């Protein structure tokens, strides 16, 4: 019979329209919520929310309250802003050498620090031009001291191209929420960068910092 195929097709459409498990639209970046939705999204019980924040509660009843929403990201997500630890970096420029596009610029000078462990260079310049970066992560894979990590964010839009160059000042002051991509030491701690917890420089490495005795032992062997 003609027309039966159309009806069959529309049945599938209707199923996807009704079943909640088939709904996949995410209202990025903000989702409008009601009062119940607000208490669910913020994790605060309803009576407490009414007492603590009555203005937002009234707003949510009027349909004016919004909560942030985006797709869930895995901790391994290779994000835009890099997490870089100055304390771990020796200025070896492996990342600059391994970058397929050559967008990392490093200028170093001798510092006179840590003479016994080998010279540590002073970093005069550490620029990453993420306007041209393709986030392949080869620089992070190359870093021998786990100083450079991929970031976890993806909303780095700027109005000018030159703002996309991350320099040393920006890298030092940025939030340190590194991705666990190619960093098994962070993954084994079940670290999730999207929860917003910062990682200190001594917690980000593969190796523990050697104690003074271990260092002295190493120097004595030389």
């Amino acid at each position: 019979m003609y027309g039966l195929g159309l009806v069959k097709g529309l049945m599938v459409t209707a199923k996807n329209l009704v079943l909640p498990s088939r709904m996949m639209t995410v209202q990025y970046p903000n989702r409008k919520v009601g009062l119940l939705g607000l208490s669910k999204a913020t994790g605060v019980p309803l009576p407490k929310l009414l007492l603590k924040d009555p203005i937002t509660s009234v707003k949510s009843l009027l349909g004016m309250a919004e909560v942030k929403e985006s797709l869930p990201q895995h901790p391994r997500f290779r994000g835009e802003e890099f997490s870089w630890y100055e304390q771990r970096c020796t200025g070896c420029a492996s990342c600059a050498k391994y970058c397929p596009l050559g967008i990392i610029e490093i200028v170093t000078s001798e510092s006179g620090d840590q003479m016994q462990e080998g010279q540590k260079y002073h970093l005069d310049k550490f620029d990453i031009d993420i306007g041209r970066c393709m986030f392949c992560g080869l620089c992070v894979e190359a870093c021998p001291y786990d100083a450079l990590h991929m970031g976890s964010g993806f909303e780095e839009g700027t109005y000018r191209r030159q703002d996309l160059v991350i320099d040393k000042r920006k890298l030092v002051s940025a939030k340190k929420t590194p991705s666990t991509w190619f960093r098994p030491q962070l993954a084994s701690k079940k670290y999730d960068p999207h929860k917003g917890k910062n990682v200190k420089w001594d917690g980000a490495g593969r190796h523990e910092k050697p104690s003074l005795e271990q260092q002295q032992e190493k120097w004595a062997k030389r």
Partner: protein
Amino acid sequence: MPINTQPVTINLGPQHPSTHGVFRLRVTFDGEQVIDVEPVFGYLHRGTEKLAEERNYVQIVTLTDRLDYVAAMTNNLAYVRTVESLTGIEVPERGMYLRVISSELQRIASHLIATGFLLDELGAFHTPLIYCFRERERILEMFEMLCGARITVSYMRPGGVLQDAPTDFWPRLDDFLTSMPGYLDELEGLITENEVVLARTRDLGILSAQDAINASITGPVLRATGVQWDLRKAEPHEVYDRLDFDVPIGSVGDTFDRYYVRIQEIRQSLRMIQQCVAQIEPGPVRSKAPYFIRPDSVDAYVGTESPKGELGFYIVSDGGISPYRMHIRAPSFINLTVLRELLIGWKLADLIVIFGSLDIVVGEVDR
């Protein structure tokens, strides 16, 4: 009395929504009938082969993501297999299984895109496409777990894969494998027996097996003509010889067969992944390969079955850290060679459908 019309040449593309990217067709029509077609491409040319000459063997992996950008995993696989045959680097067992799992997932994603866009071009605007994209989204989420990126994966390296799958990957994969056949049945219920689809695609743009072989067509387009040729069966690489799967073929070689072969291939891919999950064992995923690879042999060509056909890399080495010359045999590009013969005589609305059923990706055509 026949009415004579003057031939009209119109320009389809390069910014046309149904040309799968920046691809241009110069078509001459007699009334509504196509009398001549000339594909014009090169709008997305980035010079990948030349760029590869000044990068080392690991860095080129990132370039191969950008060839066929809806099937980056299989591009990675084709490239690293060539480097491995050039240098003789061994791959650990678990690495091979992870490669097969990820590239079969990528094949499902790519075929879903092909199916969705074919329906889009048939006039079923966007609703079936979004159904396909929803399932593809779950695959991309799994890729994000494996390697941190959804499209430009860069997951494979000469000597294995970059890193092992996280523990939460396997439950997600199981969930996908159990629910995907149901979704696929639903999708087929929408399309396969739909009268409108059948009327529009049956006996449309028939490609004979002889023509397909003469034009060295590969992939689902060749298999739709009834030729049983699949590199995974013919020259088993990785662990494909340990897996039990069929090569689906079509009978006529029309647009419907090309669609239906893809749907059946998705089912076979699901079967393969299920067997891989059952067989995989713990172990290393990447063998010790130097970062700066200096190959001993001079050249190597390895063809791999990508979702579009045989994707081959030909690398000539002069012993240095980067290839002397890299040539890419892109299946989308070679499958386009029959486009003129396929399209002549059909109407404008059929042109879009036949072109869509070839499933080209312009990133691969232009390289």
